[in-house]
Every structure is written in C-alpha cells, then in structure tokens.
C-alpha cells in the first residue's frame, strides 16, 4: 500500500512537471507616445545584458525606458550599442556585439531590417544617394576598415582601408573624415575619403587616441585625443590633447595639451552656432570658446559623466551617468551655464544622445 502511494506520487510529479513545459517571457508593455519632441538615449548595455533605447520627452519631462523591446514584441537589440544615426526618419543602430546595424523606423521604433556581415560596427554615416559608410573595429578589435553599404539592398559593396579602430565619421566640405581611435590598440590619425569615388584622399596625423570631433563655425575640425598610456599603464606617456585641424591644409593648426597623467578629454560636442565646445575631463564637464587662447582650469560642472550631448535648440547639456555599469544609469540635464535642471533614470550604461526637435 505504501509503495502504491509512492508510485502515485511519482505520477503526480510527472504531471506537474508538464506544467512547467512553457516558461513565459513577458513582454514589457509601455504606452509609447509620439517620439517627436525629445531625446533618444542610447543605453549601451553590458556583456550579458542587452542595450536599449530610452526616450526623454521635452513636453512631459518624463522618460520612457525599454522602448525598443516595447515596440518590437519583447525583442532586444543586443550588447554594446555604439551609435544611432538618423537619416530621413530612418534610424541606423550600430550594435558592436551583434556585428550588425539595425534599421529602425523612427516614428514607431519598429525594426525594418538589418545590415549584416559587419565586424564590430561603430557608426553609420550616410554619404550619398543610397550609400553609407560603416566604421568597423574588426573581429579582434584591431580592424582597419570601413564598409561601404548600399542602403537599398542593405548589403556591403566594398571596404575601404583606413587607420586602426575607425569610429566617428563626419561629412564636411564634400569629404568624409574618419577618426582612427586605435580600437583595442592605438592609432593617431584621421583618414579623409572622397565619398563619390570611395578613394582615400589624405591621412592627417593627430595625437594618439583621437576619440571625438566637431566642426566649428569657421569650418575647422576640433579633435579630442585620449593620449597614450605607458606600457605599464602607470601614467599617460602622451597626455590628452585638444586639436584644431584645418581640413584644407590637412594639418593641425592649434594644439592644447592637458596636464593630467591619468585623464584626457572626451565626448567633444559643439553648440548649434559652432562657437562653444564642451567636453568631459578629469571628473568634470568643461567648456571652451573656439577662439579662446587657453583651456579652462576649472570645470563648468564638477561631476564625472560618461556621455555628453547638446540640445541644439535650447543649448542645454545632456549628460549620462552609468553609475556602477551594472545598474540602470541616469541622465542629468544642465543649462548651458552648468545649472542642473532635471534628471531621469534610463537604461544600462547610457552613453549617447539623439535629439528630435
């Protein structure tokens, strides 16, 4: 009798087991408004946590998180979102760890396609009719190529060899300027490409680790450089620098060196009128007028951030704080004079912004 009970219970277990046959992954449901007046926050994500997009509305001053998942049936974009480029209301999301650029309808954030066969894509730049460049770090992070993409077929047509670890690209005066950051290694220059012929026209030597650039009101290109650590990483043996490059001459016309042995400028951004730049350095946010003769000694904002964006319409500064990189981060909004106005909780490792207004 006892035995019989035991076998009954085994049967019960088997039956109950079937209950667990389906695990429900819930799709977060978010009421998504119009994405017309606000800013997209690109949350990079981490090794085992996908990146995401958040939208901060200027109308409601509220943030909506996990918009990608909400609008795409619970799907996630992937890890290490590097950048969002928008052209004709189509978004191009460069996803490093997925080796893919995803194409998004910016009106509702639904994914409409992919560009595959990329290796650690960093940024997409539309350079002509149906043509775009995608900077890539290569499978090992030491890549030296950018992919030429046909946007109607969404395929790679050819690759152009540039410097190592190409990242940011801009189109100015009919040429494409590519910053060669070094990727997982180091490099120190900028490649100039003719987007019509896809030929490399020039290579401009900068300082080690160029990480971001802007074009000012007078047409000069400003580049923030990370410098280079000594082989034992004890200090920067080449310190960080801010460079003014004359694109016509193809050379540096002004150079500002930074003092710190451990920190260097990054996230260079410029106001809509092209007169004032902002950058992150040594635990603070600094500003710099394009005609200033020296760097500012003290920061405009004393707080460490990871990403920086400027709202062209209002001049407000948007800064991102990833906290411990293992928690959802924050964005903080400051006036152009450095007064904190608002903050919001966003996703994992917020790193860059795209303004819609």
């Amino acid at each position, binding site marked *: 009798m*006892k*035995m019989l*009970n*035991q076998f*009954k*219970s*085994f049967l*019960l*277990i*088997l039956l*109950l*087991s*079937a*209950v*667990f*046959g*389906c*695990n*429900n*992954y819930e799709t977060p449901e978010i009421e998504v408004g119009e994405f017309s007046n606000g800013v997209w926050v690109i949350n990079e994500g981490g*090794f*085992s*946590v*996908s990146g995401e997009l958040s939208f901060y509305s200027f109308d409601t001053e509220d943030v909506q998180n996990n918009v990608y998942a909400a609008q*795409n*049936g*619970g*799907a*996630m*974009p*992937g*890890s290490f979102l590097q950048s969002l480029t928008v052209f004709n209301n189509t978004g191009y999301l460069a*996803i490093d*760890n*997925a*080796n893919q650029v995803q194409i998004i309808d910016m009106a509702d954030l639904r*994914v409409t396609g992919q560009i595959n066969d990329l290796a650690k894509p960093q940024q997409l730049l539309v350079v002509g009719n149906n043509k775009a460049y995608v900077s890539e770090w290569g*499978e*090992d992070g030491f890549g030296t190529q950018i992919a030429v993409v046909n946007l109607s077929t969404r395929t790679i047509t050819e690759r152009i060899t540039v410097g190592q670890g190409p990242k940011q690209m801009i189109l100015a005066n009919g040429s494409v300027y590519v910053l060669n950051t070094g990727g997982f290694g180091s490099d120190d220059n900028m490649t100039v490409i003719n987007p019509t012929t896809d030929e490399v026209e020039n290579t401009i030597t900068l300082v080690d680790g160029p990480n971001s650039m802007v074009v000012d009101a007078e047409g000069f290109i400003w580049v923030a450089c*990370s410098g280079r*650590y000594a082989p*034992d*990483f004890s200090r920067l043996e080449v310190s960080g620098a801010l460079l003014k490059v004359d694109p016509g001459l193809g050379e540096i016309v002004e150079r500002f060196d930074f003092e710190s042995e*451990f*920190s*260097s400028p990054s996230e260079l951004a410029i106001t809509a009128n092209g007169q004032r730049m902002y950058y992150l350095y040594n635990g603070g946010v600094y500003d710099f007028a394009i005609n200033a003769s020296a760097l500012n000694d003290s920061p405009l904002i004393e707080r460490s951030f990871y990403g920086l964006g400027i709202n062209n319409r209002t001049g407000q500064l948007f800064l991102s704080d*990833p*906290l*411990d*990189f*293992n*928690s*959802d981060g924050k964005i903080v909004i400051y006036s152009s004079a450095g007064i904190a106005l608002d903050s919001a909780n966003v996703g*994992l490792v917020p790193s860059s912004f795209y303004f819609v207004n």
Partner: protein
Amino acid sequence: MKTGFCVLLIAFLLSGTTAYAQLGSDTLLLEAVEIKSVPLEKYGLGTKIQTFDQEQLRIFPSSNLSDLLSRQAGVYIKSYGPGMLSSISLRGTGAGHTGVFWNGININYPSLGQSDFALLPLVGVDQVAIHYGATGALYGTDAIGGAIHLSQKSNFKQGSQVRLDQMLGSFGRMRSSVNYRWSNDQWSISTLIDRLAAENDFEYINTAKIGRPKERLDHGAISQYNVQQSIAWKPGALSQISVNAWYTTTDRELQPTMLSNTKDTQADQNLRLMADYSLMSDNHFWQIKFAYLSDQLLYNESDDSKTKQHIIKLEDDWSIADKLSIKYGALYNYVTADLSAYEEEESRTDLFASARWQPISSFTLVGSLRQALVDDWTIPLTPAVNATWSPDFLQNKGFSLRASWARSFKTPTLNDRYWRPGGNPDLLAEDGISYEAGVDFSKKRKNSSWGASLTVFDMLVDNWILWQPKGSFWSPENIQKVNSSGVEMSISVTQRLANFVLDQSLQYHLNRTVNLSNTERRDLPYTPRHTGALLQKINFNSWQAIINHQYTGERFITADNAQMLPAFYELNLGLSYQFSWNGTKITAQANVHNVSNVMYQNMNLRAMPGRNYTFNLTIEL
C-alpha cells in the same frame, strides 16, 4: 514560479509516510578510509558536509562537476551554456569564494581565483564532498562560501579491473573512457583515458530576437581529453606513498549570447601532479605532499595566461590523549604567473592547527587557527570554533546538534593585484565572518532509514572586491560589504518493499545575499533565493529508475535589481539495466534531460538546450 519548489516539496511529502527521519546521506558517516587522508569531518564537524560517493557520482554517467552540484546538491551553478564556463555560488557568495580541492590541494586558478566547473569531469573522481560555509581556518584562501573536495582513492587487493564507458547523446555528445586498475596488497595502479566531444548544435527559441525565431547554436563545440594516472605503494602496513597525475586539455568554442554571433574560442590545459607520503604511528599520522599545478588558458588563440604552482604541505594529526587530538602543519606555495597582461611571482605560506576535544561522549569541540602570509603582507589570523552536542535525551530520538563560528578569507587574485591596466596591489584580503547552527536527525527502521538535516547560517563578508570604472580603465577595490543568510534543508529516505528499494533525497536552499554597501540592501546579482533538487531512485532487481527534479528561483541580473530572470525547473529521467555476461558486468542506461522541454536561461541571454537524450554503456571486466 515559486510553485516549482512547491512541486519538489509536494512530491517529496506525498511519497513519504509518517514524519520520522534521521541522519542524511549528506551528513558524513565515518567510513573505513585508506591511509591517505584524515576524514574531513574529524576537524570539520559542526558544519554542513555533504558527500557523494562513486555510486552517486555515476547516477548520471559522463557528467561533470557542475551537473552533479546542481542536480544532486541543489546548489546554484551559473552556467554560460552546456559545457561552457560554469561557476558556483555557495551560500550566495561569488565564484571565487569556494575553494576547490583535488586530494587536499586547492586547484583554483591563482590568476582568476576560481575554477571552471565545466572543466572538471567526474570520471576518475572517487568522491566529491561539499563542505559548506566559512572553512578558511581548515582550508585556507577562497573557502568563504565553502569548499569542494574531489578525491581519488587507491584500492588494494583487487586484482585487475577494466572499466569501459561509452556515452552517446543528442547534439553530437560523445564520451568514451577506459579505466584500468590493478592492485595487490602492496601496489595499486590506476590509468584512465577519457575523451569528451560535443557539437552542442542544439535548437532553441530565440526569445530575445524579433519574431522569436527558432535557431540552432552554431558555435558551442567542445573537445576534451582527460588522462589520469595514479600509483600507490604501501611499503608496510603503516605507510603509503602515492603519486597522482591529472592532465586535461579542453578546447571550446564559446557560446555567444542570443543576440550575438561572436566566434570566440578558449583552450584550457591543466596539468596537476602530486606525490605524497603518509606515515602512521601509535599516535601520529604524518603526511607530506608535493604538488605541481600548471594551468594555461588561451583565449582567442592570442590572450595567453599561464600559471604554475609549486606546493609543499606537511601535516601531522596527533592523538595526544583519548579525548584530545590536534592536527597541525604548514603549506608553502611558490606561484608564477605569465600572462599577456603581466608577469609575476610570489610565495604563499600557511601555518595551521586544529584541536579536537571530546570531554564527554556527547560533546565534541574543535578549535582551528590559520595564519596565511603572502610575500610580505599578512592576511588576518583566521580562527574557527565548531561543536557538536548530542545528549542522550536527543540522541535516543535520533537528533544531534551542531554549531560553528568561523572566520574566512580570500587572498586577492593575481589578476586583481597585477592586471595591467587597473590591477591594485594595495588590495586587502576579503574577510568573512560566519555563524551557523544545525540539527541532524537519523533513524533506522527495519525496512527504511531516514535522514534529515537543517542548517541556518548568517555570514558577513567585508572588503569584498569589485572592479570599478576608474578614469579610463577599471580597477578592483575592497568596497563591498555583503550579508548572506539562509536555511539549508536536506531530507533523505530509503525504503525497502519486497524487491523494490526506493531512495529519495531532497535538498533545498533558502538564501538571501544582500549588498550592505548601499542603503537599499539589494540582492547581489545571480543569487537566487530558492534552489532545490530532488533525486528519486527506484531499484528493482537489476533495474534502476531515476527521477531528478531541479529548481532554480528568480534571480536578479544587475546590481540595482532592475532586471530579473524567471525561475526554471528541469526534470531529468534515467533508466538503467545491469546484467552479467560471461563474467562481464554490463550496464546500459538511457537518460532524458529537460523532459518537459523547458526553454530557459540560467544566465541572461545564454541559450540552453531543450529536451535531449543520452545513452550510456558500461562494461566492467
């Protein structure tokens, strides 16, 4: 999904009868041991020790250490995929907070400070013991959450034995091993050659992608060779010399996340050599051990990490009087590391002593003390006090009580201290203080035996090391303070009815691990509050049926507890038949894993296989 655990419990309660129980199979029973080692519980009494002998290790043949721990001990194993990096979280601690010992020597990589449990096959291992809790005073560095002991035993007077194992399974899984053993009354030799290969090209539903497509994993293949040789010689009745060699080489394609198609690879080579001499006299048990451990990890064929350890350990277990014995000794380890990121060498010395005092038969007290020194810096003195008490009025009912207070530590890993960039040579050792108490119950009846044990613990780990962003790179700091507390329960029952023998063992861990460094007292990522396992075995003549339930509760994946993975439940079944043919013992076993075909993720975005099968054939000559 807490219902998953309820199923375990209901299943268990329904299958039981009246509410009487006893000392579990997990609470070590003293057994006759060869001359090679002092039983763990002699000085480890008062704490929770769970052992798995050869028969238990072979319930699911061809499995590795991570399978055993999750299926049979209900311990949480973080796994990046089948055969991929698997690390343990004992009592909510981190992957490096469990010491892993091979015949008494810590085999955690000194660079990473932890072991990959998927690289430790159980073929050739004769016993696995889990010693829960702060056992640093007994075992040294790493043993904050506990220690795992893998041991090999030499048998004498057995003549020659050959054992052939062949496994075939889903997704191109294959394991073949040959073990030859020969012994007379003085010599014992064992040779094992073992090969594992798996394509791991399983199909899964990619819940992270748009449209939830069905995909096939195309980058998760594994190939492993495992060779073991041991020779033992007993020149006299009271001494033994043993030599053990263990070599594994494992090549793995690293399974990417469900949102990636990266093609990373990892090759691990581990050579472990050991020679020991044991000598028994009236009151002493002397042992000297020499060990050489060489570990190499090659990532993407370019990032190389090589470490070598040269170890001497001398100890004596001295029975001073009937009621008093002490074990004392010293360990010296010279470590060299040659990595792409740094080169380093250092000396580590441990001095340790334990005293066991049994003033009356119902009460035993053990005090232990260890001082570890690493080059010129000192690790805090590590004491422990343990006791067991089973007065007559409790013992008559089958109960005994135990308690323990202990300190534990972890030497910062070589990577923590020397990695370039970011390594922080000024780190302090991680420092744990733990309290635990437990009650064990055992009862034998004519046709049944019951065992149960209940343990409560509370642990504080200070100076917990975390890598933090610091300027342009990351650097480790002693910044986190963690409290872990919980209850561990195990119940085992063996019942006999006619030709049936029913064996059941339930393990349940209730655990909460919180970060005290922030005011919100959040859970640490990947520390499920509930885990459990139920193993049911029915033997009928030459047949054996196995039902194994495994439950892992919800766990957070980020430090702010903003994202959570759902709980999962896995059911595994096995059926085996044993017969003799011309004096050859043959065992055939068929297993179905993940019977209910649950699509789950143990770790975020890491696909796991659905229902799959293995078939085993064992031939013993």
